[in-house]
């Protein structure tokens, strides 16, 4: 089976643009609402979907995604629901890569083997585990990789040259550059610092580089898209779900379409 993540990054590259990666928390505001939001993202032009696994204590997330986690858990979302959402998504969208993002404790509650098997069976392409740094890779990394699921690593503004090789060791799928030293959805990084960071990462790895944290507008996405292989938008979408609840899907689709439009326009301008 062709690797959906590398296939999609290659396709975007061929179009001269960055991949659009959009995030939503599974089960926000409830499990029934999520399929329509995921479909809206794909219809709006998202290339890769990040599905958040809710956790009671999301300490790397800002208020927007934290509240989404609590809304989801408050409406009764269970881990089995998250995998059911993933499985159904895969049945509807054979080619769109799906990445689970979350925290170690829910992922490992039934053991790494169980989690990796569920990911594989549900057609999950990659996992981002916020609180497992390379030093603790043994908890989850080998098992996921053996199951053919990428463990996506994060590089941050504090990841210096000395440390970068450790982050890249075992990294696969893509490299997620966290643009700000902080939590999700709060500050916004200066474009110049993103450009320097992406250039540094590209010199160190052939993996696609996706940039996230604090990306809220089509203009910002386009600017980052000029240098990075992917742009991640999360909190801005989660805010829309927070405002519109069960009726969020069309609003999400419009916003994702605007993001995608900006990336496409930027690619055409660059080509011209």
């Amino acid at each position, binding site marked *: 089976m062709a690797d959906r993540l590398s296939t999609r990054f290659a396709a975007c590259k061929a179009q001269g643009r960055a991949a659009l990666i959009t995030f939503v928390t599974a089960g926000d505001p409830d499990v029934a609402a999520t399929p329509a939001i995921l479909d809206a993202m794909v219809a709006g032009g998202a290339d890769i979907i990040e599905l958040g696994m809710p956790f009671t204590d999301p300490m790397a997330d800002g208020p927007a995604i934290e509240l989404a986690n609590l809304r989801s858990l408050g409406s009764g979302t269970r881990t089995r629901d998250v995998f059911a959402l993933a499985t159904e998504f895969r049945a509807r969208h054979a080619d769109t890569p799906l990445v689970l993002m979350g925290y170690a404790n829910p992922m490992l509650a039934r053991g790494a083997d169980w989690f990796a098997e569920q990911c594989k069976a549900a057609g999950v392409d990659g996992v981002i585990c916020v609180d497992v740094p390379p030093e603790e890779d043994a908890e989850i990394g080998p098992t996921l990789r053996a199951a053919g699921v990428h463990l996506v690593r994060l590089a*941050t503004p*504090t990841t210096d040259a000395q440390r970068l090789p450790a982050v890249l060791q075992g990294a696969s799928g893509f490299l997620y550059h966290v643009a700000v030293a902080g939590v999700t959805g709060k500050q916004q990084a200066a474009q110049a610092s993103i450009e320097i960071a992406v250039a540094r990462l590209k010199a160190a790895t052939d993996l696609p580089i996706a940039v996230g944290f604090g990306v809220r507008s089509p203009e910002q996405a386009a600017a980052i898209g000029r240098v990075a292989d992917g742009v991640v938008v999360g909190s801005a979408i989660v805010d829309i779900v927070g405002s519109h609840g069960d009726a969020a899907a069309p609003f999400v689709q419009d916003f994702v379409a605007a993001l995608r439009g900006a990336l496409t326009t930027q690619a055409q301008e660059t080509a011209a």
Partner: protein
Amino acid sequence: MTDILAPTSLPNSLRSQPDAHGHFGAFGGRYVAETLMPLILELEKVYKAAKADPAFDAEFAELLRTYVGRPNPLYYAERLTEALRAKAEPGKGAKIYLKREELNHTGAHKINNCIGQALLARRMGKKKVIAETGAGQHGVATATVAALFGLECKIFMGAKDVERQKPNVFRMKLLGAEVIPVHSGSSTLKDSMNDALRHWVSNVHDTFYIIGTAAGPHPYPELVRDFQSVIGKETRAQMLEAEGRLPDMLIAPVGGGSNAIGMFHPFLDDPEVAMIGVEAAGEGLHRKHAASLAGGKSGILHGNRTYLLQDEDGQITEAHSISAGLDYPGIGPEHSWLHEIGRVKYMPIKDDEALESFQTLSRLEGIIPALESAHAIAAAEQVAPTLDADRIIVVNLSGRGDKDIFTVADALGVEM
């Protein structure tokens, strides 16, 4: 209780943990966001250097002596001992000593660790410190050392706790700290730790996080334990002087477990010394409680792998204890390890038992214990009468109870 004094089969030394990666057996480690990793690694380096530097130790010891008021006494609680003997079978009723941590400046063991971490912050050139607090004891201790060292200080405290602990909130403000009420989650200790971590990850360049207990990412469990080990070292020397031998048993309350590990660690390689960590059983283990070892399982939260209260999906469940300092769904990783290897026994004590002992110690010894410490007193009241009268127990009286009088009055239905 008959197996409590039974010898345990031990590896060469139980005092050489954690390993190079911060693991205590299967527990501990460094489960933090990548943004924090470089800082955690730097802290480890700085701490190693400090540990090897006699000047660091000398300054720490001097501040403990002149500022904290150490050594504090090891006190023979004769009236408590006799009261328990009166109810025990003839020849039974162990002798109970109290290690008087409540006599420290700021009224609890917390200050020992705060002094140590403030010295590390200074070594790292950090001008700002942050801390989480539940009842406010660690917040007050942190605000105190921040004033002492001239550091800018922010304390994260659950909004519910800010309401419940107004005197401590005012104390922190008097000491020059900013108290930030945390409204996320259940608005209690675990949420204030989440928000402290969020603030830290956003301000790593100039901020030092003074964690209040022997938990969190490596090297925190190790360094907090080392700073708190002054409790056990003093106890050892004082007991040898008073009785010419080591105690038969140590008893200490365990929330995160810093006072307990500080008392236990210097004795871990003495198999004749039994140890009991006392967990908060709240309303009972089948109802709301905070006993992570008795009622939880291994998981990952706040930077370490340890026993946690959680559901089958790994969602953290809310802890409950009448003692705000024990009201946390986790426990330090070294305790999880000592529990699994059986070196330390852990015993649950309920809210009502602690309340009873809170009053007993006040009346019999003229010492109002913190509700945390009252849990340990309750355990001693249960264990002492089962042991021979020539046995010796030391209870860690980790803090004084002035902060708890409102809670206790409320629980007893007394209008103040």
